[in-house]
């Protein structure tokens, strides 16, 4: 129990930090996306388009293309923000010693719904906006609006379904536990 509470405290700090850092990164991105030092940040230095990978700093950005690109990132990260709020609340309950409760089981259920929304809706549409933003300044005939489902979406979908199944089991288990506790 103490181990869970200790780890939950550290995780809670990580989730709180991410909740602050991620929006700041998104807000700053339009101002730094065209800078050469972005090439050294491996995670965000390029984007994938139907014509191949494009280094972000080499794209001739306009304000509109930047807004569209960052909107795509924002849409993709929306489920993540929701998940971070849920995980923060979950860690707070773990710290208070509330481990096997209906609220925690429902939290996992909501996480699974977020995974589902992410894999089916926000990832494809976010990707669409990013590709559009990255290719908006291309010559006519080389601007793309693509909607795709790949192995990443499938992995997220399978993860969502597994988490949903586990959360249903946890909800039933917590109801059985409550009934057993209230049996005299």
């Amino acid at each position, binding site marked *: 129990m103490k181990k869970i509470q200790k780890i939950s405290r550290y995780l809670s700090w990580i989730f709180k930090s991410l909740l602050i850092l991620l929006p700041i990164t998104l807000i700053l991105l339009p101002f730094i996306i065209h800078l050469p030092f972005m090439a050294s940040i491996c995670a965000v230095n390029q984007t994938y388009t139907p014509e191949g990978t494009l280094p972000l700093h080499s794209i001739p950005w306009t304000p509109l293309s930047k807004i569209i690109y960052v909107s795509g990132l924002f849409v993709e990260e929306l489920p993540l923000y929701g998940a971070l709020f849920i995980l923060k609340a979950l860690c707070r309950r773990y710290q208070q010693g509330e481990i096997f409760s209906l609220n925690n089981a429902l939290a996992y259920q909501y996480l699974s719904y977020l995974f589902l929304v992410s894999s089916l809706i926000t990832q494809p549409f976010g990707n669409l906006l990013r590709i559009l933003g990255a290719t908006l300044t291309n010559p006519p005939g080389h601007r793309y609006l693509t909607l795709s489902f790949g192995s990443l979406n499938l992995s997220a979908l399978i993860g969502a379904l597994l988490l949903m199944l586990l959360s249903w089991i946890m909800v039933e288990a917590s109801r059985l536990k*409550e*009934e057993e506790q*209230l*049996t*005299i």
Partner: protein
Amino acid sequence: MPITVHLDVLLAQRKMKLQDLAEAVGITVQNLSILKTGKAKAIRFSTLESICHHLHCQPADLFSFEQGVCDVHP
């Protein structure tokens, strides 16, 4: 809750305290309090037998059912 528990009435009539009954029955005061306040979801026959034995009563004296306040789905 359609089932009403009359444990407090029986305890008052027998002039017995909740702690004394809990000790006699062999369950915690908290559990007995859950039963008294109507929050219990189920009661074991062994517990019911012990309560009836120590209160010198019938199970029907302990519980009553109110028509029309039913939250049980068929």
